Protein backbone atom coordinates (compact mmCIF):
# COMPACT_ATOMS: atom_id res chain seq x y z
CA UNK A 1 0.00 0.00 0.00
CA UNK A 2 1.36 3.28 -1.07
CA UNK A 3 0.85 6.41 0.91
CA UNK A 4 -1.36 7.93 -1.75
CA UNK A 5 -3.64 4.96 -1.58
CA UNK A 6 -3.96 5.30 2.15
CA UNK A 7 -4.69 8.99 1.83
CA UNK A 8 -7.23 8.35 -0.85
CA UNK A 9 -8.91 5.73 1.30
CA UNK A 10 -9.02 8.22 4.09
CA UNK A 11 -10.79 10.67 1.87
CA UNK A 12 -13.14 8.00 0.71
CA UNK A 13 -13.98 7.08 4.27
CA UNK A 14 -14.65 10.67 5.23
CA UNK A 15 -16.77 11.23 2.17
CA UNK A 16 -18.65 8.09 2.86
CA UNK A 17 -19.24 9.14 6.42
CA UNK A 18 -20.49 12.53 5.37
CA UNK A 19 -22.91 11.07 2.88
CA UNK A 20 -24.35 8.71 5.44
CA UNK A 21 -24.69 11.53 7.90
CA UNK A 22 -26.41 13.61 5.29
CA UNK A 23 -28.83 10.81 4.64
CA UNK A 24 -29.57 10.50 8.32
CA UNK A 25 -30.05 14.22 8.46
CA UNK A 26 -32.47 14.15 5.62
CA UNK A 27 -34.50 11.61 7.48
CA UNK A 28 -34.21 13.09 10.91
CA UNK A 29 -34.72 16.80 10.45
CA UNK A 30 -38.19 18.16 10.91
CA UNK A 31 -38.95 20.17 7.80
CA UNK A 32 -37.77 21.03 4.34
CA UNK A 33 -35.76 24.01 5.37
CA UNK A 34 -33.73 22.15 7.91
CA UNK A 35 -33.41 19.04 5.78
CA UNK A 36 -31.93 21.13 3.07
CA UNK A 37 -28.86 21.74 5.19
CA UNK A 38 -27.56 18.18 5.19
CA UNK A 39 -28.72 17.64 1.65
CA UNK A 40 -27.12 20.76 0.31
CA UNK A 41 -23.90 20.70 2.28
CA UNK A 42 -22.87 17.34 3.62
CA UNK A 43 -23.85 15.58 0.48
CA UNK A 44 -21.92 17.95 -1.70
CA UNK A 45 -18.84 17.80 0.42
CA UNK A 46 -19.04 14.06 0.86
CA UNK A 47 -19.24 13.70 -2.83
CA UNK A 48 -16.30 16.00 -3.30
CA UNK A 49 -14.30 14.06 -0.75
CA UNK A 50 -14.89 10.81 -2.53
CA UNK A 51 -13.93 12.31 -5.83
CA UNK A 52 -10.81 13.79 -4.35
CA UNK A 53 -10.01 10.40 -2.91
CA UNK A 54 -10.42 8.88 -6.32
CA UNK A 55 -8.27 11.59 -7.84
CA UNK A 56 -5.49 10.87 -5.40
CA UNK A 57 -5.84 7.19 -6.06
CA UNK A 58 -5.63 7.72 -9.79
CA UNK A 59 -2.76 10.19 -9.79
CA UNK A 60 -2.37 12.84 -12.40
CA UNK A 61 -4.13 11.83 -15.56
CA UNK A 62 -7.05 12.79 -17.75
CA UNK A 63 -9.21 10.68 -15.53
CA UNK A 64 -8.35 12.90 -12.59
CA UNK A 65 -9.07 15.94 -14.65
CA UNK A 66 -12.45 14.55 -15.47
CA UNK A 67 -13.04 13.89 -11.81
CA UNK A 68 -12.06 17.43 -11.06
CA UNK A 69 -14.46 18.70 -13.68
CA UNK A 70 -17.20 16.65 -12.10
CA UNK A 71 -16.41 18.10 -8.68
CA UNK A 72 -16.47 21.62 -10.05
CA UNK A 73 -19.79 21.13 -11.71
CA UNK A 74 -21.23 19.53 -8.63
CA UNK A 75 -20.18 22.55 -6.67
CA UNK A 76 -21.87 24.76 -9.17
CA UNK A 77 -25.09 22.87 -9.62
CA UNK A 78 -25.79 21.42 -6.21
CA UNK A 79 -26.16 24.64 -4.22
CA UNK A 80 -28.14 26.09 -7.05
CA UNK A 81 -30.55 23.23 -6.94
CA UNK A 82 -30.73 23.58 -3.19
CA UNK A 83 -31.41 27.26 -3.46
CA UNK A 84 -34.04 26.72 -6.12
CA UNK A 85 -35.70 24.24 -3.87
CA UNK A 86 -36.00 26.44 -0.81
CA UNK A 87 -36.87 29.34 -2.99
CA UNK A 88 -39.78 27.44 -4.42
CA UNK A 89 -40.84 26.21 -1.01
CA UNK A 90 -40.71 29.75 0.27
CA UNK A 91 -42.65 31.08 -2.67
CA UNK A 92 -45.29 28.45 -2.04
CA UNK A 93 -45.64 29.87 1.46
CA UNK A 94 -44.22 26.97 3.38
CA UNK A 95 -43.49 28.09 6.93
CA UNK A 96 -40.18 26.99 8.41
CA UNK A 97 -40.27 24.74 11.41
CA UNK A 98 -39.40 26.50 14.61
CA UNK A 99 -38.12 25.19 17.82
CA UNK A 100 -40.91 23.81 19.92
CA UNK A 101 -43.17 22.79 17.02
CA UNK A 102 -44.38 19.24 16.94
CA UNK A 103 -42.46 16.99 14.68
CA UNK A 104 -44.54 15.95 11.76
Amino acid sequence: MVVTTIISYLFLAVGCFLIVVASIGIIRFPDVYSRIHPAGKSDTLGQAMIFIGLMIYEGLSFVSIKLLIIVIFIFITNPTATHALVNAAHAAGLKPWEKGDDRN
Partner: protein
Amino acid sequence: MFDAVATIIVFAAILVLYRVIKGPTIYDRVLAANAIGTKTVVLIALIGFIYERPHFLDIALVYALINFIATIAILKYQEMGRLD
Protein backbone atom coordinates in the same frame (compact mmCIF):
# COMPACT_ATOMS: atom_id res chain seq x y z
CA MET B 1 -12.53 -0.60 -0.29
CA PHE B 2 -14.39 0.77 -3.29
CA ASP B 3 -16.89 -2.00 -2.94
CA ALA B 4 -17.47 -1.18 0.68
CA VAL B 5 -17.86 2.50 -0.04
CA ALA B 6 -20.29 1.78 -2.85
CA THR B 7 -22.34 -0.49 -0.63
CA ILE B 8 -22.52 2.12 2.07
CA ILE B 9 -23.61 4.73 -0.41
CA VAL B 10 -26.34 2.50 -1.75
CA PHE B 11 -27.40 1.98 1.82
CA ALA B 12 -27.50 5.72 2.32
CA ALA B 13 -29.53 6.06 -0.83
CA ILE B 14 -32.03 3.58 0.49
CA LEU B 15 -32.31 5.67 3.63
CA VAL B 16 -33.05 8.71 1.55
CA LEU B 17 -35.56 6.78 -0.49
CA TYR B 18 -37.67 6.73 2.65
CA ARG B 19 -37.91 10.49 2.41
CA VAL B 20 -38.76 10.36 -1.26
CA ILE B 21 -41.66 8.09 -0.64
CA LYS B 22 -42.78 9.54 2.65
CA GLY B 23 -42.67 13.19 1.67
CA PRO B 24 -44.56 14.85 3.21
CA THR B 25 -44.27 17.83 0.89
CA ILE B 26 -43.24 17.75 -2.70
CA TYR B 27 -40.14 19.68 -1.74
CA ASP B 28 -39.01 16.92 0.55
CA ARG B 29 -39.29 14.54 -2.32
CA VAL B 30 -37.36 16.71 -4.70
CA LEU B 31 -34.75 17.27 -2.06
CA ALA B 32 -34.35 13.60 -1.41
CA ALA B 33 -34.38 12.76 -5.10
CA ASN B 34 -31.65 15.30 -5.60
CA ALA B 35 -29.66 13.70 -2.82
CA ILE B 36 -30.04 10.33 -4.47
CA GLY B 37 -28.86 11.98 -7.68
CA THR B 38 -25.62 13.10 -6.11
CA LYS B 39 -25.13 9.66 -4.64
CA THR B 40 -25.64 8.18 -8.04
CA VAL B 41 -22.87 10.29 -9.49
CA VAL B 42 -20.55 8.99 -6.81
CA LEU B 43 -21.71 5.44 -7.29
CA ILE B 44 -21.13 5.47 -10.98
CA ALA B 45 -17.66 6.86 -10.58
CA LEU B 46 -16.93 4.27 -7.91
CA ILE B 47 -18.17 1.43 -10.04
CA GLY B 48 -15.86 2.65 -12.76
CA PHE B 49 -12.99 2.34 -10.34
CA ILE B 50 -14.15 -1.05 -9.15
CA TYR B 51 -14.08 -2.30 -12.71
CA GLU B 52 -10.91 -0.31 -13.42
CA ARG B 53 -12.63 1.25 -16.42
CA PRO B 54 -12.63 5.05 -16.27
CA HIS B 55 -15.13 5.28 -19.13
CA PHE B 56 -17.84 5.36 -16.57
CA LEU B 57 -16.87 8.86 -15.58
CA ASP B 58 -18.56 10.23 -18.67
CA ILE B 59 -21.84 9.01 -17.30
CA ALA B 60 -21.16 10.58 -13.95
CA LEU B 61 -20.41 13.80 -15.76
CA VAL B 62 -23.77 13.66 -17.51
CA TYR B 63 -25.46 13.61 -14.17
CA ALA B 64 -23.24 16.32 -12.79
CA LEU B 65 -24.24 18.49 -15.70
CA ILE B 66 -27.88 17.83 -16.31
CA ASN B 67 -29.43 16.17 -13.32
CA PHE B 68 -30.11 19.70 -12.24
CA ILE B 69 -32.54 20.20 -15.16
CA ALA B 70 -35.13 17.85 -13.81
CA THR B 71 -35.00 19.50 -10.39
CA ILE B 72 -35.41 22.95 -11.86
CA ALA B 73 -38.23 21.72 -14.04
CA ILE B 74 -40.11 20.20 -11.14
CA LEU B 75 -39.70 23.33 -9.06
CA LYS B 76 -40.71 25.63 -11.83
CA TYR B 77 -43.79 23.58 -12.46
CA GLN B 78 -44.57 23.52 -8.75
CA GLU B 79 -44.22 27.25 -8.56
CA MET B 80 -45.63 28.48 -11.86
CA GLY B 81 -47.71 25.58 -13.00
CA ARG B 82 -46.02 25.62 -16.36
CA LEU B 83 -42.65 25.12 -17.95
CA ASP B 84 -42.60 27.63 -20.74
